[in-house]
């Protein structure tokens, strides 16, 4: 059951190609940021797949992106330049950080995916209605663009179908995360990461079904003996680095919660219709979701959110992931750490690159875990 997610993680491209075989004429759209309103793509029966890196060293992006931009963005672009996403019919981004926007614009110019769209997701999400009105109008333009491209009208019923599909998938993932609150979590952080990340490119219904089955038939009674391990939280920049998570959990800890765009932030809240027209409801959902730090102003609302996660999932410490050169998180992390430490939660910050320098990191992680336990030594 649960191992399905790892298979999906490793065979992401094969899955998409299979999907096209099973859905003749069906379109696949790659997206660069989780602010992309997948509801609308689903309404048009498009398969949205998140474009992520492969964590391998590469030498193809240097001509396109100057070295001070985050390695994750370059890794993403490299996937396109190396033809690994050649099955995409379209590619799009919802406005987020400058780094990933650059990967998108270079992709547009050099990868040659037939259709592309830049969707200006507002940054001033705390302006509430101003942002919602604006985004709803942009979503309307976007919907038209998709209609022109696919040659098919997208009605309110289609949108509602897309919304329902997204919400079901989100609910399933939240229930899966709920299990990790247990003193003896029935799944490892690695398994949870596989489940969370694959939700971003597997057909939502299919993914939700497997999550449900895993919860009901397997996990509920499962005992991995993780009860005694030090409970950790992961948060910060984009992070789907399974090698890193393996190393951390292999050092005597269990990761029980995260705040990443590749994790909980993706499915944390639903699109709620009550009264709103579908597009406004969708706009409101993305404006109100747990924000990327680049949109978290003038107030720092992520502080409370991250602290609440740490408390609700009862973690002893948090590992703060800084994707090298990721400015939005660099602007967030110092206050996040002060806030957690102030509340008795120790933190360890690590700067991630495309590949993990296991050597240096293992020492830091083990030493961090020692400060959280190892009383038998004194």
């Amino acid at each position, binding site marked *: 059951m649960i191992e399905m997610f790892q298979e999906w993680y490793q065979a992401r491209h094969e899955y998409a190609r299979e999907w096209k075989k099973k859905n003749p004429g069906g379109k696949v759209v790659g997206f660069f940021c989780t602010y992309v309103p997948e509801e609308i793509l689903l309404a048009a029966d498009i398969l949205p797949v998140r474009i992520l890196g492969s964590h391998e060293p590469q030498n193809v992006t240097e001509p396109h992106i100057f070295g001070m931009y985050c390695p994750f963005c370059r890794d993403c672009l490299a996937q396109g330049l190396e033809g690994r996403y050649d099955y995409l019919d379209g590619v799009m981004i919802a406005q987020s950080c400058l780094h990933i926007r650059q990967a998108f614009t270079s992709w547009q110019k050099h990868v040659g995916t037939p259709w592309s769209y830049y969707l200006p997701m507002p940054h001033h999400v705390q302006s509430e209605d101003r942002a919602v009105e604006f985004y709803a109008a942009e979503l309307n333009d976007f919907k038209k663009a998709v209609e022109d491209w696919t040659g098919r009208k997208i009605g309110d019923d289609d949108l509602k179908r897309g919304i329902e599909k997204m919400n079901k998938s989100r609910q399933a993932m939240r229930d899966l995360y709920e299990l990790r609150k247990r003193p003896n979590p029935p799944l490892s952080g690695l398994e949870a990461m596989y489940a969370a990340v694959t939700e971003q490119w597997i057909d939502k219904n299919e993914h939700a079904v497997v999550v449900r089955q895993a919860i009901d038939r397997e996990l509920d009674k499962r005992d991995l003996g993780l009860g005694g391990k030090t409970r950790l939280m992961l948060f910060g920049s984009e992070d789907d680095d399974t090698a890193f998570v393996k190393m951390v959990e292999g050092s005597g800890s269990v990761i029980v919660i995260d705040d990443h765009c590749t994790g909980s932030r993706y499915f944390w809240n639903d699109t709620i219709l009550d009264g709103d027209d579908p597009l406004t409801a969708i706009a409101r959902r993305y404006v109100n979701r747990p924000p990327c730090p680049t949109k978290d102003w003038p107030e720092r609302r992520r502080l409370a959110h991250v602290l609440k996660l740490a408390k609700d999932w009862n973690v002893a410490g948090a590992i703060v992931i800084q994707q090298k050169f990721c400015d939005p998180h660099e602007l967030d992390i110092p206050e996040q750490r002060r806030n957690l430490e102030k509340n008795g939660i120790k933190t360890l910050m690590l700067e991630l690159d495309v590949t993990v320098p296991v050597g*240096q990191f293992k020492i830091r992680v083990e030493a961090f875990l*020692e400060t959280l336990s190892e009383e038998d030594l004194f």
Partner: protein
Amino acid sequence: MAEEFWRWTESRWHDPDIDWKKGQVVSAGVDVGSVSSQAVVMVDGRLYCYSNTRTGSNSPDSAVKAMGMALEGTDLTIDDLPYTVGTGYGRVNVPFGQRAITEIACHGRGANFMYGPSIRTVLDMGGQDCKAIHVDEKGKVTNFLMNDKCAAGTGRGMEVFADLLGVSINDVGELSLKVEEEPEPVSSTCVVFAKSEASGLLRAGWPKEKVLAAYSSAMAHRVAGLLERIGVEPDFGITGGIAKNVGVVTRLEKEIGIKSLQSKYDSQIAGALGAALFAEALIKKGAKK
């Protein structure tokens, strides 16, 4: 290979007045670092013997070599050791070890022994990493910070310079102090760039001591930055090979305005010492091979 100026000289020591057979608890620690390895044996919490050797490309052998050298001239053998804790890069590859603990914890504990329980901030400069460690009165690590990507300020940088200038690593500190006035620090703290910058200075006719002074102060400044990020809570002590480099230490003390504690022990054995102390604690709690 040409003469290796960067290499630390190997050494060993043991206390002939101690008869380990009469001791209650014999505990051992071995620190297999990237460049050098140390082994320590303690009897009832007293230092019995230690060694300071070079790490080979095979860490199990290096661990055995280090312990073997420490035990030279004693009637104690590796097989007699009831419990050994390994630390350092090769901590998991100690054939005769029962447990692996990071060098951060071990240096914290070792410094507590070497410098006394009043120490609160430990600076350890190893070959690859530079660590600022906060410890409590028991020597338990409460917080620590390690150098970021720019590994400048690690022992490695000084070794590269020793090699470049053809000065033994043991002498670079003294030599760097033989300047009338302090030169501008080298602008780049990156080892690679500092090296090419230094070759430039040499070409420009700078004497060795002046070049060393310029690098030492750049290094001290960089390390001071690391210490300030975590905060220097007195008392303050330095472990690892760099503690022996008076050139860096005096400049560092000047920068942070705090003198570092002195110890009669070899600062390079702090990690192995901490490991042996942990082994002792574990033995007392019933730990066995």
